[in-house]
Structure formats: C-alpha cells, structure tokens
C-alpha cells in the first residue's frame, strides 16, 4: 500500500536496484502487431531458455508496449547495462529465441537484423505520451513506478489545489487529441465550476477511425499513464469516479487496463483516500461494441448508461448534463496521457514543445504508401513534408506521393504541393482537413481520389447511427452518387447534386459524424476536381 510519495519512491528504488543487478535486458514488443506474430511466446521462450542456460542472474527479459515501428514487427531490443541506448532488432521471427540466448552469451551477433537508430524515424520524434512505450512492462505497476508513474499524482495531492491543476493545464495549452482540439483546461474548468456531489471523468478509448491505433498503443504500452491522468482530472474537477470506454475489439488494451487498475487499487493508487490525502478516485472499464459513432461524446454516454449508442442534440453539454445526467469530463486517451508529464515537468516545459497555438506533441499512425508504417510521436508544428518524408521515410514504392489523408472519415486530403504546411490544429483546418485523432494515410500516384472519397463516405454510411435524416439518407445517397463518378457514369446534374448534398449533410446533421462526413469529398473536390470531372459521361 502506497501512502506517500516516500513509499512510491521506495518502490521505484527497489525496482531499479533489482533491475540494476542485471547486465542485460531484452525487451520484446507485445503490442498488437508484434503479438499477432507470436511475440508473447517468443518472450516466454527466451525467459525459459535463460533459466536453462543459467543466465537469469545477469539477464532478464520483459514484454513491452509498441515503440512504433510496426512495419518491422516483431521488434526486440537489447539494453546493455550502462549503455546509453538500446540495440533494436527488427523483423524477428517468433522462433528466434535461441538467437537471443546466443546473443546474450556473446556467441553470435544479429547484425543483419540490427536497426539503425540514427534514422530520422527515431531522432525527429519527440516522445511524451509514448515515452515509456517500448521500455516498460505494462503488466507490472512497479516497472511503471520505476519509470516515474504516479509521481505527478503525488505532486498534485501533496502540493496543489484543484485550481492550481486547472491553471497548470490551461497554461500548458493542451488541446483535446480526440479530434476536436478543444482546450482541455477549459473543459475541466467548466466541470469544476458546477456544484454537484457526483461528477464523472470518462476516457474515450473507442478509437473507431479506420487505420488508427494511437490510443490502442498507449493503453497497451503504458496504461498507468492513462489512469494517472484520469485521477488528476478527477482531483481537479471534483470527480471520484472514472470510466474508460474501450472497444471490445481491443482485447489486449482491455487486458492491460484491467490489470493496471487492479494493481493500482492494490497499491492504493486508486480507491478511497489515495495517499492519505482525502481524495478518492476509482476507475471502471466499459466495453464498446465497436461502433464508430459510439466515440461521439453523447453516444458514448448513452452506451455507458446501457442504452442504444445514439447521439443526442447538444446543448445540454456534458459539463452540466453528462453521464447519468451529472457533470462529466470526456477526454481522449492521448489527451489524458499528456496530463502526468505536464504536471510533473510543468506547463512551461510543455509549451516549449510545439507551437503556441498547438502545444506539445501528436501521435500519428502512418499507413498507406509509406515506408515506415507505424506509430510516431512528433512535436506539433513540424512540417507535413518532414513527417512524411523524414520520419515516415517517404513513399513505399516506385511511385511519387500524391496526397496525404488526415483525420480519417472526418478529415480531408492534402495534395503533395501543400505538404510544407505545419502539422497543427489550425493549419490543417485552414487547408480543408483536420488533425483528427492521428490517422495519416499516404497515397501515391496510383490512388484515385474519387475512390478515396468514396471509401470514407461508405464508411460513414455504414457507421451512421441512423437517427437523423441528413446523415442516414445523405451518406447513402452520397455513396451511390460517388459510385457513379467512380464508374464514370455521372452527369453534370449529379455533379451539382453532389456539391449541394455535401453542404446539406454537413450543415444539417445532428452529430459530428454526419457533420464531417462530407469532408473527404469536399477536400478532394477542392484539390482534385479534375478527377471528378473525368467521372462525368458526356451525353
């Protein structure tokens, strides 16, 4: 039971000492991509063989979360005692346990699998949210504590008032990472202001954008960061109960979070009277059925309440009428994972990363025709070109890059000639896309932009909850219409109708899903109009 900062530090010290005895640490990525290739068995087998070979005294192996380079799975890294950085081995097979034993015994090297960490993929990144991903064992709270977990919580409990926390978060300029970019400090403040005995903090882990897996990685690799962020939010806003809403399709994330909550409760970091401070906070997990619309604030709440996951018209806003009609803060996983670092290192430190209007970092999931597919965390304000060509390594094939899609089904396509813009909320919006939650799809010259728009529209069609007419019918109509353009059978009137309908769906739909569904069409219309015109049959 941890009752004070001293207790916490003691555990951290003990753990570090225990780890310090070892000369070597082998870290096997057990994030979803690597796990799907059998990395957990690999980790177990290495452990077994270490024991057989009597290496367990000076070597240890642990499973760690994703470090981002998913295209090179399985990832295994080797940290030698005293070395400033680890050796990263990529494209490892689940059957290669013996090779690592040989490596530890200096009988063999694995040079051909050694990854050059001096590449831009690594050094241009800036890790806050993912700082521990790839280093700590998400199954072990002590490992997290040894890496600084819950330091911020104790700082808050021991030295800060709720108002100080609110000020710090407001100061930091942190904006919501779930897509909207709403200032987190203001959101918290509006809930803190309301007088109510019951308030809730909800973590949005629904992550429904196709191709996005930023939040999954955070939950899998460093679940305590999320729990800590929620507790601090609870303290700042006067809430004592939190919920994490995770899609059931994320079994590993659910498992890690469940374990983390259990351990945190056991160590007294969740529950009643945390650290003898008088502050109580507990967290429960709620599973979502994987409907994209359930990531929308009001639908998510309806779903937690046990109802059909339908959005409702706002206002009333969540700050005065949220979960069970109580004031509620809803934040994205990544937003919450930024909290502890901000508290720990201060708003000033955070503000120095990124640009004034968009502070800090953003995690992106790179997919499509790009060399380094996977997760990256970059400081805001980096140019899109740097992100795609340096960090992402450029096009994966022979063909040149044509456009970048950000923001998933709510976002837009940015043509190659605009890649010099800065990656931040406002610049992306100005150019007709959005930051979104961090999905980034790279498309090369072989891509047809009308088909891309159609793909996202069809996604919205199948994910629409069906409550309001413009979205329910509009997304179906628009998908059908785009089919005509793809088949090159559209007419001039279809072209007019397409534009009008996009406007109506955007302006009349009830929730964000419908309101943003036309964005992929509108942005491709703006930058690739000729591809639509080619779809018009002349007669």
């Amino acid at each position, binding site marked *: 039971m941890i009752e004070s900062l001293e207790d916490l530090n003691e555990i951290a010290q003990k753990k570090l000492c225990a780890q310090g005895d070892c000369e070597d640490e082998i870290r096997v990525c057990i994030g979803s991509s690597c796990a799907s290739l059998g990395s957990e068995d690999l980790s177990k087998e290495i452990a077994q063989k270490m024991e057989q070979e009597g290496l367990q005294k000076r070597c240890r192996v642990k499973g760690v979360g994703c470090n981002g380079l998913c295209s090179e799975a399985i990832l295994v890294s080797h940290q030698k005692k005293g070395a400033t950085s680890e050796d990263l081995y990529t494209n490892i097979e689940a059957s290669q346990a013996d090779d690592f034993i040989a490596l530890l015994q200096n009988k063999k090297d694995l040079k051909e699998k050694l990854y050059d960490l001096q590449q831009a993929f690594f050094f241009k990144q800036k890790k806050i949210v993912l700082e521990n991903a790839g280093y700590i064992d998400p199954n072990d709270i002590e490992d997290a504590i040894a890496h600084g977990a819950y330091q911020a919580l104790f700082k808050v409990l021991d030295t800060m008032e709720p108002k100080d926390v609110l000020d710090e978060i407001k100061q930091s300029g942190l904006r919501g990472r779930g897509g909207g970019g709403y200032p987190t400090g203001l959101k918290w403040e509006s809930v803190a202001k309301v007088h109510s005995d019951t308030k809730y903090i909800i973590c949005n882990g629904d992550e429904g954008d196709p191709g996005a897996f930023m939040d999954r990685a955070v939950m899998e690799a460093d679940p305590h960061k999320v729990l800590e962020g929620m507790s601090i939010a609870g303290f700042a806003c006067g809430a004592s109960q939190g919920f994490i809403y995770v899609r059931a399709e994320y079994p590993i994330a659910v498992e890690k979070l469940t374990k983390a909550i259990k351990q945190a409760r056991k160590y007294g970091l969740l529950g009643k009277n945390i650290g003898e401070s008088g502050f109580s906070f507990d967290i429960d997990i709620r599973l979502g059925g994987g*409907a994209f*619309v359930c990531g929308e604030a009001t639908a998510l709440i309806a779903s937690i309440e046990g109802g*059909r996951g339908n959005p*409702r*018209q706002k*206002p009333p806003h969540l700050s005065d009428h949220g979960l069970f009609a109580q004031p509620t803060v809803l934040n994205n996983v990544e937003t919450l994972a930024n909290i502890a670092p901000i508290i720990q290192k201060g708003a000033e430190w955070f503000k120095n990363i990124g640009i004034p209007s968009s502070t800090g970092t953003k995690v992106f999931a790179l997919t499509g025709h790009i060399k380094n597919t996977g997760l990256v965390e970059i400081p805001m304000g980096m140019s899109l070109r740097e992100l795609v060509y340096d960090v992402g390594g450029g096009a994966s094939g022979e063909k040149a890059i044509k456009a970048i899609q950000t923001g998933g089904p709510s976002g837009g396509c940015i043509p190659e000639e605009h890649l010099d813009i800065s990656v931040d909320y406002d610049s992306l919006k100005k150019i007709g896309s959005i930051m979104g939650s961090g999905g980034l799809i790279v498309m090369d010259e072989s891509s047809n932009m009308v088909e891309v728009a159609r793909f996202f529209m069809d996604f919205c*069609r*199948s*994910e*629409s*909850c*069906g*409550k*309001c*007419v*413009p979205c*329910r*019918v*509009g*997304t*179906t*109509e628009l998908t*059908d*219409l785009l089919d005509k353009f793809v088949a090159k059978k559209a007419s001039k009137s279809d072209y007019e*109708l397409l534009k*009008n*309908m996009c406007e*109506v769906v955007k*302006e*009349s*739909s*009830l929730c964000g899903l419908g309101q943003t569904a036309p964005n992929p069409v509108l942005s491709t219309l703006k930058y690739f109009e000729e591809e639509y015109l080619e779809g018009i049959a002349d007669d």
Partner: protein
Amino acid sequence: MIKEKVRVKTFKIDGIDVTGQSNATLLEVANEHGIKIPTLCYFEGLTPAGACRMCLVEVEGSDKLIPACTAKIKEGMEVTTNSERIKSHRKMILSMIFAERTHTCSVCVSNGHCELQDQAVDLGLDHSEVPYIHKVFEIDASHKEYIYDPNRCILCTRCVRVCDEVEGAHALDILSRGIDAKIIHDMDEPWALSESCTSCGKCVHVCPTGSLFEKGVSATEMVKKKSIITNLIKTRKER
C-alpha cells in the same frame, strides 16, 4: 398554491418580438406566437428527438443551424426560420425522406391526412431532389387490429417515444443502424407476438405517416387521432 417565480425571456423570431418562459424551447415559443416552423419528429408532450432536422433555424451570430424543437431560448437571441439557405436545406432533407423508402401516396391509407405529404405542400416540394433509394422492408400485418408498413416509416421515433413515455410499455425500439435502421417490436418479433405491447394503439395515432395504421382501412381512409394523445399527456401533467 405557491406562486412559482417564472422568468420570462424576450427575443426575436423573424424580426417579431416574442416572449417565452425561460425553460421553453424555441419551437414552443414560436408555436405560441403563431409562427410556423416545419416539424416531423416533434410531437407535443413527448421528449424532442431532434432527428428529422426539418425545424432547423438560424440564430444571429452563428452559422450553425439548430433544431428549434430541442433548442432552449436565450434572452435577446435573433432567430431566422425561413432564410433561402434554410428553405433549400429543408427541401433536400424532405426529399431524402421521400427517397429513402417507398411512399406511394396514391394508394396510401394516409393519403390526404399525412404530415409528410403536408410538408411537401407547405415547402413547395414538387419532386424529390435526390434519387430514390427504395430501401425495402417486410410489412407486419400480424396484429389483429393494426398494420405496420416500414416502407412508409420515416424513423421519426414518435411511436417509440409514446410507447415508452406515455404508455410505459417500451414495446418498440430501433434495430440496426444507418439506412438499415428499423422500428421493431420487442426483439424483432411479429407485432402479434410482442409480449410488452398492450395493443393500446397510441403508436398508430402519433405516427405522422401511413406506416402504422388500422386494419381494414383503404387508401385515404386512415385519419389519425393525434389530439387524444396530446390531451392525455396534458391531463396527466396537470394531475
């Protein structure tokens, strides 16, 4: 009786000065002042759904469109109910409702007494601006007194709400989502086998279209008795 302190708010709708009780919705105040805002999913006395989007209006100072049926009034707000933008949006939304399923007015039991049809007349919609989808569903004629033809349903959810909020049976709900969404009885049972349906018929009478109707009526003959339900809700509230 204790006098409740009722606050009143003053604002403008289409340039006309209006007043309403502070917790009133825009639509309620407009109705009290005889200003007509088109509605379809709204039904007096039921929780507003904000689903059909026919009642969208503009509020000075924002380019967002908001549904009058759910929006609370604000002191000094200036509301426009009939700009060119709103009118053309409404026409397209109404077109979408007509195009979604299969409304064959000429042979419909509700022909001449249908709120959807009335909207077309009021808005001057003489054809659908969008292609017909004709999403098809099976008719449920299992109940001894009523028929449910989903092909004429506009998913306004009035039936769901009246069954839940007034009858208290919650026999109706929505199955699936998006374009596949459909009103169902219990767990998608035939109506006659629904264990929670009390056969009160409230759903039939709040239904704005010919989707729910009495057995035995033919084209044009189904006249809904909406006032029964509105009066019922009112009397209960007054008790």
